[in-house]
């Protein structure tokens, strides 16, 4: 993209009394990008977000926002806003009161229009007089977004904003979130443990593990060219055969033994996934691979098949 960097984190560390939550994390986020921090729980992604928001003080490192260093500033002096995992809407205020909350501290001449506009954007105009307790989970999430976006932050920090929603709703809200980000052009820094979410939403992403960044790049780079076994396993599904990784969609299945060194195995079970079917195959030699086939592929559990793949699709990692 080659656009200017709006948020830059350099060598950021956070040491709590007994454990190292974040260690030497560096990342840069371009203006207008959708950037995800992905990792399992306890990997330091939320702490990183809280350090950027100013709720935690870093043990070491620097945070630069829009050209100025902000890591020593209190949260109320940083031009970033947060959408909390629990949404943290003020229960004593209406939707309107919540959205107007921050404007009291950053008076704007066009405050009224901004509130009106953002409520339209999240489709909450008709519920502006409701209290948070009278809203559904999805509606609360939209109010939390509106409350933060109305202040036009340099970066919007989102802490697993979809995890409190039921799975049915999650995909729909995910699409709305992406549309909102495109529409507003605001830079999003999105924390999630859901790799599918991160892959679907991000322009760029970083995978975290044990307080450190394993790898950063575009979703496609990370999926196709993972630099570590952890990234390879964490993103999508991965088979490990003879020490190399091969994705299920790269594994071909045939009844014909061929002459190109195909490996023989027995289908232990098949899993129907709608558009396609996963075959779990026990190879001779004991290893298990999953192969993705068309849903209509004619294989049955118990059948003997031969698997093969293009060696160019193999992923190798130094052990």
């Amino acid at each position, binding site marked *: 993209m080659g656009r200017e960097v709006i948020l830059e984190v350099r060598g950021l560390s956070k040491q709590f009394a007994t454990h190292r939550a974040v260690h030497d994390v560096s990342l840069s986020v371009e203006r207008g990008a959708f950037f995800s921090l992905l990792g399992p729980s306890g990997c330091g992604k939320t702490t990183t977000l809280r350090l950027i928001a100013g*709720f935690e003080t870093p043990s070491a490192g620097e945070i630069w926002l829009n050209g100025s260093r902000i890591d020593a500033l209190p949260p*109320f002096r940083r031009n970033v806003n*947060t959408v909390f995992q629990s949404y*943290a809407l003020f229960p*004593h205020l209406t939707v309107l009161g919540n959205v107007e909350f921050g404007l009291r*501290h950053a008076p704007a001449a066009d405050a009224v229009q901004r509130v009106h506009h953002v409520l339209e954007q999240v489709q909450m105009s008709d519920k502006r007089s409701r209290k948070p307790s009278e809203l559904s989970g999805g509606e609360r999430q939209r109010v939390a977004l509106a409350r*933060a976006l109305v202040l036009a932050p340099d970066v919007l920090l989102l802490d697993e904003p979809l995890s409190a929603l039921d799975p049915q709703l999650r995909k729909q809200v995910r699409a709305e979130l992406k549309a909102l980000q495109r529409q507003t052009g605001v830079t999003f820094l999105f924390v999630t443990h859901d790799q599918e979410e991160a892959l679907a939403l991000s322009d760029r992403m970083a995978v975290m593990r044990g307080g450190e960044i394993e790898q950063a790049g575009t979703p496609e780079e990370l999926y196709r060219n993972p630099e570590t076994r952890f990234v390879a396993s964490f993103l999508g599904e991965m088979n490990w055969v003879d020490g190399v990784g091969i994705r299920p969609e790269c594994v071909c299945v045939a009844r014909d033994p061929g002459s190109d060194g195909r490996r023989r195995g027995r289908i232990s079970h098949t899993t129907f996934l709608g558009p396609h079917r996963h075959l779990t195959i026990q190879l001779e030699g004991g290893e298990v691979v999953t192969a993705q086939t068309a849903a209509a592929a004619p294989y049955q559990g118990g059948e003997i098949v031969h698997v093969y793949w293009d060696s160019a699709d193999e992923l190798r990692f130094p052990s």
Partner: protein
Amino acid sequence: MTRLRSIFVTPAAVLMLVTIAVPAAIVGVYSVLSRGAYGGVELPWTLENYTRLIDPLYGGIFVRSVALAAAATALCILLGFPLALFIARSGTRKNLYLSLVILPFWTSFLIRLYAWMFLLRDTGLINTVLQSAGVIHQPLPLLYNTGAVLLGLVYGFLPFAVLPIYATLERLDKNLLEAAADLGARPIAVLTRVTLPLCAPGIAAGAILVFVPSLGTYITSDLLGGSKTILIGNLVQNQFTTARDWPFGAAVSIVLMIVAVLLMFTVRRRGEELL
């Protein structure tokens, strides 16, 4: 299920009935009877005990009592809120500080009031120290006035304000405070725009717990106020003891109860409007 519940609820319900409802009913009945020659009550029924209360003398006592209880309540909340906030934010020391707040209850209130008398009287600790230090030449009139009663009430009832406020502060979602700061609120604004409104129920509970006993107090005003500060509590006490006018004492009690209940409802309604 309902049977089990009734087994557990019945003892408390019976206790409440016997110790609150029945005595209150007896007081109500006494208040519409006539005065016996040597205390006690006699027929005929009369409303005279209530009409006597219209006298400005008693009106003055009521107004003074309400004003003093209101002042004690306001001071307890003003002092209690920062204290509760401090305790709620002291991490692992919370329990230590809470026990310190409750510690005075281990000694009888009466003894603690006598201790205040030792501190405040003309030959008491404060005056003696100030005089020997040459700061003052005449003892300061610290005891036997309204100020001393107010001091005693605030001292005695402060924990009742601190504890419910602490309970609401403790329950407060920390994310809300972070969200307020995140949206640009300085610490003072976080306090006034988020913490205070969300603690309104605790503040209201604390206010009621201080106000009601302050309104009916008689030991504090008796010991620290001397003969100058007559409050409703003392009026009631006098009717049942020296004046031997039980029906009038009962009528005053009933009016006091009605005032207290009305005020409580007003405060609660205001509290609900806030939330």
